[in-house]
């Protein structure tokens, strides 16, 4: 699986030999690959007007292009804000709650993200084909898809260590602009242009996987919540800046502590591990039917609903497993 940003085809349908050769060498003779473009066909076409575009079939004959539009940017931030608002609204009657949930469209985005990741995984696992994923910049929805696809396909990404590695590779080092994206979160009225909860969407999708496959992830909900918190505000330098270059310039490694170091201390790890975990060597294919995708109460209702009884249940599960 590869990822990139959009080709700069532009209005004049520019070509680039080197790019074509690069993509050509990846595939064997006669082999076909898939390009998953996370923009709609129309959006991708329009991108040409501003210098971007898509890979034309004639120049990249071995690649088949699939469009799977995923929401990003301002609309995604709006979706997030609306959902949080609906959750916190005490006046909502049952009558209107589901409508508000729906109109936030957050769960639709979760469904779309999981579906696209499954598509990428299916190309690789079932069709045994290579996949190239990109959107516009290659820093948002692209990473969402590649990271999720790896969780689905690769059991080593589902261990605690493997998951941290996945985050480092596919989000941090891949250059997801955390500083811009995770600025003020849902309550802020300032709708910053660059703010968008892609990382949260990713964590939500991971939570959906953990709910559907309660034995297959070595970590639990606590880790996901912790990552969410730290992406926005952290005592550690892991999620600082927007890319490796900036981190290097700011001397992040020299002047801050790593979140991973903290999380991997044995006392902390204990809290993050999933007591039900048992290594599952197979691919995990989630159901993306609406009934299977649920609101992540642990995050969205974190401060609203009493978690005491659920915490007790979790403690009981841990106790049962430990007793054995």
């Amino acid at each position, binding site marked *: 699986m590869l990822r990139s940003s959009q080709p700069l085809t532009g209005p004049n349908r520019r070509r680039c030999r080197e790019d074509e050769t690069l993509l050509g060498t990846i595939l064997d003779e006669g082999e076909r690959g898939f390009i998953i473009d996370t923009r709609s066909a129309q959006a991708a076409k329009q991108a040409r007007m501003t210098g971007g575009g898509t890979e034309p079939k004639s120049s990249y004959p071995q690649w088949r292009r699939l469009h799977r539009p995923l929401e990003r940017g301002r609309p995604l931030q709006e979706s997030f804000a609306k959902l949080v608002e609906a959750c916190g609204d005490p006046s909502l009657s049952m009558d209107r709650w589901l409508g508000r949930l729906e109109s936030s469209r957050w769960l639709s985005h979760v469904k779309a993200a999981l579906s696209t990741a499954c598509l990428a995984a299916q190309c690789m696992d079932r069709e045994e084909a290579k996949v190239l994923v990109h959107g516009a910049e290659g820093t948002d929805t692209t990473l969402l898809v590649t990271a999720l696809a790896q969780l689905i396909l690769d059991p080593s990404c589902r261990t605690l260590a493997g998951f941290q590695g996945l985050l480092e590779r596919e989000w941090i080092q891949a250059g997801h602009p955390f500083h811009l994206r995770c600025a003020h979160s849902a309550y802020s009225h300032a709708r910053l242009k660059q703010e968008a909860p892609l990382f949260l969407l990713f964590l939500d999708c991971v939570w959906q996987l953990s709910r559907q496959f309660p034995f297959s992830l070595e970590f639990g909900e606590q880790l996901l919540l912790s990552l969410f918190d730290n992406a926005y505000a952290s005592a550690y330098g892991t999620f600082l800046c927007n890319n490796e270059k900036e981190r290097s310039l700011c001397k992040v490694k020299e002047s801050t502590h790593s979140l991973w170091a903290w999380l991997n201390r044995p006392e902390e790890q204990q809290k993050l591990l999933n007591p039900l975990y048992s290594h599952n060597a197979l691919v995990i294919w989630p159901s993306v039917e609406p*009934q299977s995708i649920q609101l992540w109460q642990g995050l969205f209702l974190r401060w*609203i609903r009493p978690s005491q009884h659920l915490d007790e249940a979790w403690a009981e599960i841990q106790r049962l497993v430990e007793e054995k």
Partner: protein
Amino acid sequence: VENVRLLDRLSSRKAVLGTLYLTATHVIFVENGSETRKETWVLHSQISSIEKQATTATGCPLLIRCKNFQVIQLVIPQERDCHDVYISLIRLARPVKYEELYCFSFNPKLDKEEREQGWKLVDLNEEYNRMGVPNNYWQICDVNRDYGVCDSYPTEVYVPKSATAHIIVGSSKFRSRRRFPALSYYCKDNNASICRSSQPLSGFSARCLEDEQMLQAIRKANPGSDFIYVVDTRPKLNAMANRAAGKGYENEDNYSNIKFQFIGIENIHVMRNSLQKMLEVCELKSPSMSDFLWGLENSGWLKHIKAIMDAGIFIAKAVAEEGVSVLVHCSDGWDRTAQVCSVASLLLDPYYRTMKGFMVLIEKDWVSFGHKFNHRYGNLDGDPKEISPVIDQFIECVWQLMEQFPCAFEFNERFLIHIQHHIYSCQFGNFLCNSQKERRELKIQERTYSLWAHLWKNRADYLNPLYRSDHSQNQGTLHPQIAPCNFLYKFWSGMYNRFEKGLHPRQSVTDYLMAVKEETQQLEEELEVLGERLANLQKSQLGDNKVQSKQQDRSKQLRLSTSNNSLANTPQEYSNDLKSFPSRSPSQGDEEDSALILTQDNLKSSDPDLSANSDQESGVEDLSCRSPSGGGCLPSEDSGKDSDEAVFLAG
């Protein structure tokens, strides 16, 4: 009929060829495949509706919808055959006599003694005694011993000490269907009680001295409070409309010391329609998140569930926190009243959250108090307007509570689902007819078997591994959050999409934890045995053979712990998914347990369920099925459909 195709609801491509059989009690579809020959059994009693659809090139489609939410789509090659099957099923699914029902022919191979014992398992006299009655304030009353006062009530009910026979009979004449106020639940800690009745025949101005005395008697039976609540579970408008028909509700001016309260739960017709709409959403092919959420909201189903729950919470609070008795009624006092009283009891008393206690609760507030099982769930062919998912709603309330309080119930989701299943299946005699009187006339206990005995025998399958009777969640009353709490109500896909294997979490945490618990217990026992041997060894002299046996034991112990792991990592045939309840032939094997094979056998090696799921995890079915165009595995290029569905294989 041969060469019939059974379609998978989610994927029209996944059709299985087989033979369709019709027997006196079941519809059976047997797959053709040489290896598996999987069977799908459906009881006629479960059939809710049959739809003959337009004949296509492939054959004549027949859609069977079941009361347990299973939907079976068949395609019969010949139109003539299809029509025959259709007509037969219509007749079979609408029995006219009770004797046609399966419970009268079902034979679990138990002797007469065992059958009797089965019926004695739940004893309401014991239950009332457990509650603490009869006592200084409450007495048993047999004025209805020949059903002469109220034919839908049981022969024995509990009434306040100061309610004489005269008062009871007088009150019954002033109540719809003669259902006079009687005790449902007594709280011995503070003498508060929950009583139930039907609406008074008050019209606009009618009064009845005895009825007023009856309510006073209820108040006097609780010296700790100087008033009682009267809760009318209907919407105010409906109750007022009833006045024009000579019925209505209690006027606070006429009844001394009552505080009157409406809690608007809609009637059976609204609920029937609500369920219908929700099931339509469930039948949508590849719905978007929007379709689903809007559909769910439009059905209003969760709103109704919440209304019932809120009513139960109100009553539980009145009893537990205020120490005030409550009289509950609706119109006839056998639907909403039953729902609300049983929810309140469940919240108040941890006993009802145990397996036995739950059976007792249903027996008390639903069976004995004359909930009209026959009319509501269509044992026999009857008026479709009487059909309504009343007890289904109660069962769902219990599930919603289980989700909020995972440690508080001794039983698990499967218990609830099986009970719901059997309310409609008519395989056991508990839920037949409309009243105790009718059941006794039919001699149900002598001619059929009790579901409770059956469930009790298999109780290992129904346990909640997280339940501990000494857990803090189980001391006293449950307090569900009242507001905000809309988001706490979830769609119960385990019930309404029960037979769609692809939708549910593939790995059952409940089963796994039960297996863990069992294994822990076995290991503890092993440990004890080893401990004893060690003690003996230390006493006697060390011989080689003794040392050897010790080593053998240790390896046996190791084997115990690793055996489950090896099973878990071995992928297994996914088609052995046994969650589909009716795909078991009840006449096989001794007991109806055959329907529960998934639990008995697999509990010991319950991990095969896990690995079965593991294999499903690598199964392609889930993805390739969902293409609406039914086209090739992967979509064509530039599909460009900007739909929010993002079905990953949309053509």
